[in-house]
């Protein structure tokens, strides 16, 4: 968000330059994954019914008899990734089409009227603009790669077609989330992705823990959805519409800056965003969500769905710009989450748990960015994070896949995800090893990897953000601390997994192997993106300095400028109200200097950390002692789950039981039955008429009614 280029864009917005952008079949981008869902879903039912028949006949699984893989398993291989590739190419065509034009107003396509009554009219409409297209590129692009990876990863799973059905459905809802042209449409995607997340976390539903994790994700998310619903109700009451365009255009004039209404709206939106994006206090579902297949963790719980909250805040930038308290709350929640989750990641042994807390922490970074008004920086980190975190999860998937095979081959009941059981894997899986190091350097914020640029930009804006400067100085410090912790725990993960001696066991090590090409090629592509993905938004100041060394790149601040039509209004409000961002950090020093300091510190942490971890003796999980002291507190995740269980879950359950046993059964029914037994006093009469014959009853009923009628009339 460089201020120098802003006035020109604002001017062009004011002039209302006509757009020359004509989207190519935007509806088809949505329909393709839906079609994939329908086809794969049908195959899943066929395959499921066959397994069920086998089960009833006493065989445990249908298995792939002698005739190789059945059609229900070969077709999804082509349908699942196929629709994704088509959707990606179509998105690319639209993206390229938008590149060439100065689009200041979003292109809206309305298909039908969804809900209309009285003054309310909600269209089933999609909106194409710079933000939605960036999101669509990430979703379909990374989504396609993960679909391809899944072909290898899920090959032997009996639920193969069901898996692709859910995955396609997820992409469909995720696209609705970012393409919807109004809040209710976005909400369709919002809850839809939550549903798919629920289904995929509990994909292996035979395991009670996994099914529990899916349920937990859904219920916690619904707490956030409650906030989003309430925000919509307020917005409708104020604006009489729920369309983005209508609300955001009217907001600066309708709402009072810093007023109660806009503050309430933004806080409820934050609740929604915190649920979906796993922020404090609603983050607890995401670590458990790792119960799902690992590619799912990569796609849903790292690259796309969990960033929906960031998207929501960026989309509603005008509202947050008008609510300083709301925006500060977003930044604070983000900073607290980032630091808190990073501390937990320090002491996890499960490779996916490390990545899960890392994701929570990185999402916190994005929240900090959009919270201090650096919407483009937040979206930028969202994008680069999608690349390197998807890569990390897929790499972890390859590792787990290999470990699982090795342990399975010798029937060793060790945990395939525990890093203490790994070690030295670089010899067996070099491609995975190298690509994951690329991602690690990216997330650690080492120049010139993608994460450096996006993370650095966020930290910079947090430090230079104008209002309540003490607060932002504290947040800035937390952000830097988090960045260093990130560098450390990621290095720890890499060293424990890939370096040092192998701890799997001699027999098992023979079965360790590199993943097949359909898994390593996506890793390679994501690795390239993790290196170069950050170059699209090199800050002007960095680019021009010697340090940046990017003088040859023409696209300084490209993403900032690309998103300016959407963020300009919010930026202007913020600058008008709070003043411009400072040009130096809270403790002095310019952007370039701090960029150099940050990358230098991170690099030092990586090198020193790698040595420290490597020098420690690590034993397999079964031989390791339990962590003690503060390490145990971190390992046990600060006991937040236990706390929630004690103060929320159990009280509600106890209350529910009390309502049933006491209010329903004793108080209300007790009264009813007491009345009933008085009536039974007339039992002698009742026994006379209880002949068991229907016509007698009918006769008496009619007679009674007539008698009462007569009495009343007379």
């Amino acid at each position, binding site marked *: 968000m460089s201020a120098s280029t802003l006035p020109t864009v604002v001017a062009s917005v004011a002039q209302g330059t006509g757009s020359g952008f004509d989207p190519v079949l935007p509806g088809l981008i949505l329909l393709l994954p839906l079609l994939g869902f329908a086809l794969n879903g049908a195959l899943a039912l066929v395959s499921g019914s066959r397994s069920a028949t086998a089960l009833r006949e006493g065989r445990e699984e249908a298995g792939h008899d002698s005739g190789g893989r059945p059609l229900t398993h070969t077709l999804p291989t082509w349908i699942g990734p196929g629709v994704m590739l088509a959707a990606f190419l179509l998105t690319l065509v639209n993206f390229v089409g938008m590149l060439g034009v100065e689009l200041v107003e979003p292109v809206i396509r309305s298909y039908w009227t969804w*809900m209309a*009554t009285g*003054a309310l009219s909600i269209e089933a409409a999609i909106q194409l603009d710079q933000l939605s297209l960036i999101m669509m590129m990430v979703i379909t692009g990374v989504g396609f790669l993960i679909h391809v990876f899944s072909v290898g990863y899920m090959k032997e799973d009996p639920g193969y077609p069901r898996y692709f059905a859910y995955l396609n459905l997820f992409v469909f809802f995720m696209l609705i989330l970012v393409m919807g042209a109004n809040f209710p449409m976005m909400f369709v995607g919002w809850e839809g992705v939550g549903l798919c997340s629920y289904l995929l976390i509990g994909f292996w539903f035979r395991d009670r823990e996994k099914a529990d994790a899916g349920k937990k994700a859904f219920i916690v998310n619904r707490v956030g959805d409650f906030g989003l619903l309430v925000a919509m109700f307020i917005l409708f009451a104020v604006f009489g519409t729920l369309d983005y365009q209508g609300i955001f255009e009217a907001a600066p004039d309708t709402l009072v800056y810093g007023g109660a209404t806009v503050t309430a709206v933004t806080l409820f939106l934050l609740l929604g965003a915190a649920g979906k994006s796993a922020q404090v206090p609603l983050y607890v579902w995401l670590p458990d969500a790792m119960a799902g297949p690992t590619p799912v963790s990569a796609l849903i719980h790292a690259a796309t769905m969990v960033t929906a909250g960031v998207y929501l805040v960026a989309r509603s930038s005008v509202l947050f710009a008008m609510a300083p308290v709301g925006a500060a709350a977003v930044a604070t929640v983000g900073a607290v989450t980032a630091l808190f989750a990073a501390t937990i990641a320090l002491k996890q042994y499960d490779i996916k748990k490390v990545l899960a807390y890392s994701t929570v922490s990185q999402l916190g970074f994005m929240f900090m960015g959009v919270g201090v008004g650096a919407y483009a920086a937040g979206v930028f980190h969202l994008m680069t994070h999608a690349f390197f975190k998807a890569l990390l999860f897929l790499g972890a998937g390859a590792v787990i896949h290999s470990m699982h095979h090795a342990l399975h081959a010798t029937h060793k009941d060790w945990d395939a995800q525990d890093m203490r059981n790994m070690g030295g894997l670089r010899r067996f899986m070099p491609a995975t090893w190298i690509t994951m190091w690329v991602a690690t350097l990216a997330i650690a914020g080492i120049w010139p990897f993608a994460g450096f640029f996006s993370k650095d930009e966020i930290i910079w804006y947090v430090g230079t953000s104008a209002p309540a400067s003490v607060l932002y100085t504290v947040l800035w410090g937390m952000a830097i601390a988090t960045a260093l912790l990130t560098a450390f725990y990621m290095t720890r993960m890499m060293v424990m997994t890939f370096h040092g001696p192998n701890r799997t066991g001699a027999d098992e090590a023979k079965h360790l192997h590199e993943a097949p090409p359909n898994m390593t090629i996506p890793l390679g592509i994501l690795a390239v993106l993790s290196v170069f993905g950050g170059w699209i938004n090199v800050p002007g100041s960095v680019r021009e300095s010697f340090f940046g060394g990017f003088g040859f790149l023409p696209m300084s601040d490209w993403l900032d400028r690309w998103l300016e039509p959407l963020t300009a209004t919010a930026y202007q409000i913020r600058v008008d109200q709070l003043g411009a961002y400072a040009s130096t950090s809270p403790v002095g020093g310019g952007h370039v200097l701090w960029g150099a300091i940050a990358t230098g510190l991170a690099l030092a942490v990586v090198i020193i950390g790698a040595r420290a971890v490597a020098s420690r003796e690590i034993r397999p999980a079964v031989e390791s002692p339990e962590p003690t002291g503060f390490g145990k507190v971190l390992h046990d995740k600060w006991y937040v789950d236990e706390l929630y269980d004690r103060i929320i879950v159990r009280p*509600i359950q106890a209350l529910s039981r009390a309502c049933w046993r006491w209010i329903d059964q004793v108080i209300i029914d007790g009264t009813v039955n007491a009345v009933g037994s008085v009536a039974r006093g007339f039992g002698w009469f009742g026994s006379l008429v209880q002949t068991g014959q*229907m016509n007698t009853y009918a006769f008496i009923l009619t007679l009674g009614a007539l008698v009462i009628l007569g009495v009343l009339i007379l």
Partner: protein
Amino acid sequence: MSGILQASAYESWILHALIWLPLVGILGVLASSEERAKDVAFAWTAGLFVLSLGLLWSFDPAGPLFQLTSDAAWIELWGVGYSLGIDGISLFMILLTTFTMPVAILGAYRYIREKRRAFYSLMLLLQTGIVGVFASMDLFLFYIFFELTLVPMYFIVGIWGGERRIYAAVKFFLYTALGSLLMLVGILYLYVQARAGGAPPSFHYLDLLGTPLTLGEQLWLFAAFALAFAIKVPLFPVHTWLPDAHVEAPTPGSVVLAAVLLKLGAYGFIRFVLPLFPDAATHPTVVMVMLILGVVGIVYAAWVAAVQPDAKKLVAYTSVAHMGFVVLGIFALTLNGLQGGLIVMISHGISTGALFLLLGMLYERRHTRRIEDFGGLARVTPLLATAFVITALASIGLPGTSGFVGEFLALLGTWERHPIIALVGTTGVIFAAYYMLPMVQKILFNELERDENRTMPDLSRREITVLAPLVLLMVVLGVFPTPVLDRMEPGARAIVEYVEESTREGSLLEAARTEAGSPGRRFVDHPVFPESTGPVDPTLSLRDGVQGFPIPGDRRLGDEG
């Protein structure tokens, strides 16, 4: 389509047919064998459903408020008319009824094993009663039909129910009979008051509208009516008959009870309580009491549902929670709220009906309703599991299903007037997940532990035929509810506007009332049955007809005496 309808004079006979043809169907059921009774009943009700579909075309959303009206004198002396008519609201209530009946009957073909002819006769009798309620324009007639629904349901629970069926049936009967008797008193009082102004006797809805009543009278009458309907809805705290009735009722009984019978209560509030006693219905205290009861119902019933060990009882409690949204929508007195409440009524009918069918199917297979007796069924019955999950999601209002449209509009409409109430009501979406997902998990997911469940057959073709249209409707109404909303809007708007003092003059309902003209003339204007077309002289009816039959409160008689 409209050509066929016109050629057959569809509009003139369809409401009568939908009310009375079920009774003709009883003859068919009684004439058939025990074995064939279910087929006859299904074919008959399915045919009636097809017949009723024509209503979608013949009802014109741009036309007058009440359509397909007909009036015939019934008890002329008292001004009781056989008067029918529908607006967009009753249109969909009737369609919901005609749709639910064949589905409920087909869905439980194997459930009912004894006294089948009697059972299906009662089901058909029930249909007459329900359609009659929704089509009645005369309060006396309405009351008769309202009471008529009580009798078959009582026997359905009491004869074909589970172990505690007698307790459940008696509880159901006492609760509802108590409520409706007070309503009868209310109707008669209203009738007498309307006559007091000198008008000829009439129980017609449009004639009783606008009856001058003091606020005190309105409050009393409101209470009398509201109790009857609140029990039927059911509203907390008079809901405890419902879980017992549901648990004990046979599957078709539960389906009809949830899908349609509960709607009688909500319909009563909308059609009668609000417009007849507008000052009471807009009285701040009354509104607040009703809203609080509704919102307590949403949260309280969700909590109680969550700890039920019996799946059917759990779903029964969720009905209370759903109907809480309806009550919010009604008493928010906004168009959005009312429209939302109406969609919840339809959506709840479909999704809860489907849930009861699914639980019935499980019961037929395992003879248990206890949640813990299941587990892991998704592996052995994938089709049933798929239908179950979609239905459960529609029930908890996932966007894209009908449940969301209803709850969203109801809460949105409530927020316009009562934000705090709506805020509490919205927590219902959290608690809905809290009661529904654990049940789904315990039945469908987890390990398949019990051997009895291992050999469970998946859905049969008949069962797929039953569930497919329900599932389809959940999605279609969630994605494209416009045809329903459009047709209901004039009716809903008329009521909301009429209840509002300020906009009453311009409301469609006021127009319909004024147009109806002076009571007593309607039988002349709308000859349906030739024998009833004779002109009724309003001056004659009292003097000559009511000799020796003094009516209390009839001031004219008093004055002259």
